[in-house]
């Protein structure tokens, strides 16, 4: 991954969350407060307008800056979580204009750790973690099997989507949906859904 690809990833994510804002908001309205789509649209719009000036020189800087922007602009639960994840991901990368799949794997690990440290969610709690963790696992397996970035990110995206779909059956134990208890069952988690969009955006740009 180089700087251009990192920037392309963020732009593709911005496009995806904007296009899917309504669906994300609807999912959030069902078991939360109905702002997830608006939150991410606002946040990633700020991220890509931050890229419009002179873009940072390294992949790490791109991602750290994007994370800081999310923290500054989104609010809510998803702002600090995605913001901290991207910051941790960036900070775990070597400084340089390109990053290997192995280095990206380390970064993605750090990102998930940040989400879990800040939010305290475990797999099965019906959160971002339920898409992120399987995506990371699939990515790790692909890298271990010697796949390139395109293949590994495609595997991660598929796993994130399956993970997001699997949240439908879960009872929320973190975030706003946890207030619903059993009534949260039957609804797909908005944060897990947006996580899948983010991994799908990565796979899309990595594919070429």
């Amino acid at each position, binding site marked *: 991954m180089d700087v251009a690809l990192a920037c392309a990833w963020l732009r593709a994510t911005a496009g995806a969350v904007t296009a899917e804002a309504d669906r994300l908001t609807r999912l959030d309205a069902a078991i*939360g407060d109905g702002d997830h789509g608006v939150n991410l649209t606002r946040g990633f719009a700020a991220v890509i307008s931050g890229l419009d000036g002179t873009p940072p020189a390294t992949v790490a800087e791109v991602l750290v800056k994007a994370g800081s922007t999310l923290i500054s602009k989104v609010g809510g639960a998803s702002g600090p979580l995605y913001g901290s994840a991207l910051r941790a991901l960036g900070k775990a990368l070597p400084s340089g204009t390109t990053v290997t799949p192995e280095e990206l794997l380390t970064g993605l690990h750090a990102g998930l750790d940040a989400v879990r440290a800040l939010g305290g969610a475990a797999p099965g709690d019906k959160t971002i973690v339920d898409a992120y963790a399987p995506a990371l696992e699939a990515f790790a397996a692909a890298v271990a099997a010697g796949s390139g970035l395109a293949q590994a990110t495609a595997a991660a995206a598929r796993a994130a989507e399956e993970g997001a779909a699997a949240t439908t059956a879960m009872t929320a134990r973190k975030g706003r949906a946890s207030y619903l208890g059993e009534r949260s069952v039957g609804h797909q988690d908005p944060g897990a859904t947006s996580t899948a969009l983010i991994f799908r955006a990565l796979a899309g740009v990595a594919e070429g």
Partner: protein
Amino acid sequence: MKKFINDPADVVAEALTGLAAAHPELRVDLTERFITRAGAPRAGRVALVSGGGSGHEPLHGGFVGPGMLDAACPGEIFTSPVPDQIIAATRAVDGGAGVVHVVKNYTGDVMNFQLAAELAADEGIAVETVLVDDDVAVRDSTWTAGRRGTGATLLVEKIAGARAAEGADLAAVAAVGRAVNAASASFAYALSAGTTPAAGRPGFDLPDDEIEAGVGIHGEPGRRREKLRPARALVHDALDAILDAKEFPDRVIVLVNGLGATPLIELYLVYGEVAAVLADRGVTIARRLVGNYVTSLDMAGLSITLTAVDDEMLRLWDAPVNTPGLRWGA
């Protein structure tokens, strides 16, 4: 959606412009998005900062002023503020004696205030966080995000604000805030959902004869949907939930709070029912407040909060307060 707005994206900014124009006694930082009282910081005094998503007005901006908050950070509608706002407000009001953050217990609010508190610590500002989690509709459990912060926020801000005004130190101000929260329990009903400008449609749909029992102030679903019943029956159930959840050994302050679209005449009618039930149960009402204080945009609904108070809390409750949303003795 029909609202008195221009572009939905500008609602919070434009409302802050109006608030600034309407209240010369407040300072509104339109860039950093926080509200302080004129004359901040007060040297040597503990400062109180609160904040949360917009749409709950007068909470929190309307409670900035002598005897209550030093600053408020309004987020986007129903979305917690960001750490930048919170740290800017914290800096603006820190008078050297430390800052209390009053935070409603929502994942987003908790995380954003936590990040801001870490930044404040880095800058050498002592911050104590008082978490408000009074909504007994949500069963408290280590497996959930815990109870939501609702009506008790007003009582925490009023009583801790009075304690700060009389010069108590950081630990003491935080302690009384936590004590108020611990002594409070709330329960809410919605008849219909509010509509956020961004979503453009009501947060949930309720059939014509159903209500949401235990609703949250962002339209979070509650304990259950049920058929509309007479106010008397609803009050009974709400007070059962409240009295089951906590002990109210002595006197209480009662807040009957409208969620936005409920006429005051209904709130008074409900207060009459609350007073009757509490008289039956042997609970003495020391003070009460009836009105729209912690709202949820145009949600038709109300919440009932009970706070068990001792002499000290009552004295602080009665102390002068002079804010746009709450004013007495001043």
